[in-house]
């Protein structure tokens, strides 16, 4: 039940706080690894941490901005032409690509990636009871 509500509240968020407001990722994520930290609370915080950064890879982001400018220029000349439609279609295609890239980034967990390369560091140590 809590998982469902946590999922609902996270997915209901629109544009959320920028990365700057979040605590230093290293330390706070390190706390998650300790066995006495409340699993549920930590994981919901972790969800917020990852889901709240709307970061698109810069090359795609720039492409989107460029294509919007081009589309606006093309349509200023002739709003009903095929070129105008094709230009806005390109904007749509790039926005979709950007959104997929964001989802992919969201799904990749920075802590897991870091621990793959550095399993011996404090943040990555796991304890078996």
């Amino acid at each position, binding site marked *: 039940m809590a998982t*469902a509500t946590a999922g609902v509240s996270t997915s209901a968020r629109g544009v959320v706080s920028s990365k700057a407001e979040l605590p230093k990722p290293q330390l706070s994520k390190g706390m998650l690894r300790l066995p006495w930290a409340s699993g549920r609370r930590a994981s919901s915080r972790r969800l917020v941490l990852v889901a709240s950064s709307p970061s698109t890879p810069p090359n795609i982001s720039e492409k989107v*901005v460029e294509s919007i400018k081009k589309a606006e220029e093309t*349509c200023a000349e002739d709003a009903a032409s095929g070129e105008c439609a094709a230009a806005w*279609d390109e904007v749509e*295609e790039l926005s979709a*690509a950007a959104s997929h890239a964001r989802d992919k980034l969201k799904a990749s967990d920075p802590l897991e990636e870091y621990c793959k390369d550095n399993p011996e560091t404090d943040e990555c140590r796991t304890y078996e009871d």
Partner: protein
Amino acid sequence: MSVCSLYPALRVTMPWSCSESHLGSCRKQLMFCVSRTTARRRASTGVSCSADTRTVVIGLAADSGCGKSTFMRRLTSALGGVAEPPRGCDAYSNTLVGDATTVICLDDYHALDREGRKEKGVTALDPKANNFDLMYEQVRALKSGVAVEKPVYNHVTGRLDPPELIRPPNILFIEGLHPLFDPRIRSLLDLSIYLDISNEVKFAWKIQRDMAERGESLESIKASIKARKSDFDMYIDPQKQYADVIIEVLPTRLIPDKSATEVLRVRLVMREGVKHFTPVYLFDEGSTISWTPCGGKLSCSYPGIRFFYGPDTYFSDEASVLEMDGRFDRLDELIYVESHLSNLSTKYYGEVTQQMLKHADFPGSNDGTGLFQTIVGLKVRQLYEQIIAGDGSHGLKREQLRRRCLRLSPV
């Protein structure tokens, strides 16, 4: 090196399983074509190396930004695959290859890349921008058990990349803008699904998706939708009349404000007479039911949940429609609703709820979109199992032939 030779005369329809050829170009070998002759591996030839498991082909049609990726993730998860980051029609990979399923994004069959489309002034929605002949040939080849070299369209650069090898899977999903456009491809599909999102909802979803982007404003989103609308209405929308299952997403009727799109009304339209597909129903098949689960036994928060079920006509065909208006807030609402629906094709009680919870972070997990997508996923699984069971009903004879085949199979 052993390959299947490409003689139409050797078309044998008896199902038996054989060892895989080394090249993987033909999934199964015919008992009689164990010759060492190398054959040109032309993807376009329809060789029937009939196997005991044939490829089931499912088509999914929807406009861009309408939840195809989420739907695919739920579908592959319901079929027992791993729910990976979005694949198929995304920026990094157009093809998802799992244990049993392959998802092909039909954007790979663009005849014109982005530059070409700009020059000619056509959108990707226009059939002129797509190579339907190649699409048909390759889907037919995969369905009959032949691997193909599929072109790859790169969504980031907008160009066509070198082709990649696709081996025929157990289940093949083709998702994109035009799976139902060409009648030849329609004839290959075992099931077709269309996601029909209303304009208000589409607009709201695009705002949610794109507003975080630098440079995207409300006006640019509006302009983009408007510019594509005429092509969409002309080429994409008419495909819904051919679909077996249609999921319509509309704004809710529970809230008096007409433009409310936070809560969704979702209709699952299931055409009658679709092979291996039994429509979901509420309480009594064939009756018209209006059901508000919230009340004495179940308390819901505003605006609650309402269900409708009944027979209807869709493009002058008989269909049954199950509709959910509202959203789930708690687990017990979900399980309560599931316990009252029938013909869900679940393998155990609570499977729908479990699948929904497994993907609670996907968009639509708290309303009809997630619920109906999950149900359709389970229906696809049932369809696949029934088709395979139907094909493999030769029993003992198949076993005998298989043993003979293995003895003959080359090193």
